[in-house]
């Protein structure tokens, strides 16, 4: 096995086979589960399973069409409790039932309902969404009594507004909030992934200084093999984490869609061309970050300093989030184009623009080109910084030294260890 792969395997095992990685791997799905769980609990609190009453002064519901009971799983039923509808002859009786808590609310149809369509809702506390939704459907079905069943069904379903780009790559379906949320969540996921793995890379480089293993390693392998192995290991770790997240999220969505009956979970669609574009942008972005972080690890004095500076770099990555309004309202403005083409913000900008608009092909080509050149430059810089900074303990390599190549080998700050 070549030394590059020996370093890669060693580093990969070191990063992946520890509690920190398992926690990081589970953190995103757990966070999502927590958010979904909180939403579900909130939804559950809006449910009220008590009956809803109605008083029909117009007399048009003497022989009502019964509500259609949907075929739902028991878990889905929990989040959309069926309510029964109770007819009352008089308002007094309905009101007594409301006061005693037998029903959660009652509707009163005006005597001239067929002309005025006036209905009054009476409650002590607002009824659950399940109750109002089911009563609205009951009303629709009775108003459409006598129509063919498919007409009734179509009318009850209502309209769905679909906004689609001319090339068909992007579409926004009314009510499918996940179509907007997925790209945003994707960019947040990329950000978390980049931050966590690139910090790991910085520490992997700094660690050799902290452990004083740099000289042993550089007299065993070439700097290229060492830094290349470390980058490959961190990329492998990042891919492992990303694939784990995707697999866990896919499982969660399948569970939500098939078991809980949440239709939105099965309606997330991103065109393959868009995924391809994101991959084209994501790969050089990742390489750029890894290169920058490796260079950073070679220039700083210790792990603590690397975290502080690494945090600043990651802040730049998140800049498009601060400009999200501009990206949404004016996706073709100079600011949006700049953020799309600037290598450190390209990926996030593309993800956010995916949520709300499209991008022209030239911007994609230009961004990928700029990113590729930047990534190669950052890796070159990392190799140079590593070579110059590898034997400097407790002292940082300045950017001036990095570009001039006049670094001193040992630190005057570490006289106890520094020979000359």
């Amino acid at each position, binding site marked *: *096995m070549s*030394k590059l792969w*020996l*370093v890669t395997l*060693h580093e990969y095992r*070191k990063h992946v086979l520890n509690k920190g990685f398992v926690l990081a791997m589970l953190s995103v799905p757990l966070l999502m589960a927590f958010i979904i769980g909180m939403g579900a609990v909130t939804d559950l609190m809006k449910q009220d399973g008590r009956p809803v009453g109605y008083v029909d002064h117009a007399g048009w519901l003497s022989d009502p069409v019964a509500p259609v009971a949907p075929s739902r799983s028991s878990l889905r039923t929990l989040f959309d409790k069926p309510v029964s509808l109770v007819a009352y002859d008089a308002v007094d009786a309905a009101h007594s039932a409301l006061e005693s808590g037998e029903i959660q609310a009652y509707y009163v149809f005006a005597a001239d309902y067929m002309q005025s369509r006036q209905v009054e809702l009476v409650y002590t506390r607002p009824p659950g969404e399940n109750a109002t939704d089911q009563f609205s459907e009951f009303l629709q079905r009775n108003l459409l009594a006598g129509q063919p069943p498919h007409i009734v069904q179509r009318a009850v379903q209502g309209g769905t507004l679909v906004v689609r780009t001319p090339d068909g790559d992007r579409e926004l379906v009314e009510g499918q909030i996940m179509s907007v949320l997925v790209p945003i969540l994707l960019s947040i996921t990329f950000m978390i992934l980049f931050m966590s793995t690139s910090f790991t890379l910085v520490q992997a480089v700094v660690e050799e200084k902290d*452990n*004083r*293993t*740099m*000289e*042993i*390693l*550089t*007299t*065993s*392998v*070439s700097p290229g093999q060492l830094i290349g192995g470390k980058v490959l290991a961190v990329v492998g770790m990042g891919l492992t984490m990303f694939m784990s997240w995707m697999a866990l999220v896919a499982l969660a969505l399948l569970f939500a869609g098939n078991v809980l009956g949440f239709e939105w979970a099965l309606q997330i669609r991103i065109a393959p061309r868009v995924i391809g574009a994101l991959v084209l942008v994501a790969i050089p972005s990742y390489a750029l970050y890894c290169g920058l972080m490796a260079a950073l690890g070679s220039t700083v004095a210790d792990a603590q300093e690397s975290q502080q500076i690494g945090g600043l770099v990651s802040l730049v990555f998140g800049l498009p989030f601060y400009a999200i309004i501009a990206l949404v309202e004016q996706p073709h403005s100079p600011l949006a184009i700049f953020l799309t083409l600037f290598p450190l913000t390209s990926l996030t900008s593309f993800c956010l623009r995916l949520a709300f608009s499209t991008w022209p092909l030239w911007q994609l080509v230009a961004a990928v080109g700029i990113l590729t050149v930047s990534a190669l430059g950052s890796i070159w810089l990392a190799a140079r910084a590593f070579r110059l900074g590898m*034997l400097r*303990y407790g002292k940082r390599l300045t950017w001036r030294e990095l570009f001039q190549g*006049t*670094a*001193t*080998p*040992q630190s005057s700050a570490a006289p106890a*260890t*520094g*020979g*000359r």
Partner: protein
Amino acid sequence: MHPVEVSHIAKSFGSTQAVADVSFVVERGEIFGLLGPNGAGKTTTIRVMLDLFKPDRGEVSVLGGPMTEEKKERIGYMPEERGLYQDISLERCLVYLGTLKGLPAAEARQRVRRYLAQFDLAQHRNKKVKELSKGMQQKAQIINTILHDPELVIIDEPFTALDPVNTQMVKDLIRELRTQGTTMLMSTHQMHQVEELCDRILLIDEGRNVLYGEVDEIRRQYSGHAVLVRAAGELPLVPGVEQVSPHNNAVKWTLAQDTTPQAVLQALMAQNVTVERFEIALPTVEEIFIRAVEEGDA
């Protein structure tokens, strides 16, 4: 072909001249001592030898030519900056570093276990390196240096942090390696170890050669005009002795320029003195070191 040939190397970092002009040759199978005060340029010289730094001028030949990636597997190096991976087990750490020196993993593991047993570390092999004492880590470093049977071993301060028992063990190991034909370059401040172990030395100061050659020859060169004498009973007065000073269990006589040790011995014999010890007073390497550096400063 010498294992190491260094010819007039110089290396500066900015305005700091770390090495001005250093040349030496390390013979095959010898223990070579690289000596010098702090800041003399020893570490930079070693790093130039190992191609960690490119020299500004001069030439270096290691194992028959310029340093290459392939040659790294034939060299064992224990740097001044000691270090091992702290958060993994001792055995895993040493096996990994052994594989980077070209050993197959199974072979590396087998050798690591053998050396751990030899160095009384077998029961600690599954402990994390950071859980080991400084002395244990030092022994682990030595194992890492020789694990792959290198042709050339370069060690910076091999006895740091070792207790007397382990110091003796390392000395025995160094002698054993020499017996096996391994060439060794040792940089140290512990002059008595140099005297005991090294065949030849190079003393450098301010980046330049100061003394270079066989240890015994250098000591002879630096011997003053003096003899060490011990006799049964009191020593008589002998012509030509200018100064008398105690020296361990003997007396050191500094002789006049025109007085030879043979003349002094004859004078003692003539006076029927029972001589128990009579030898030319050779300076220790430490004394030579101090004198040479002081002369250089003057």
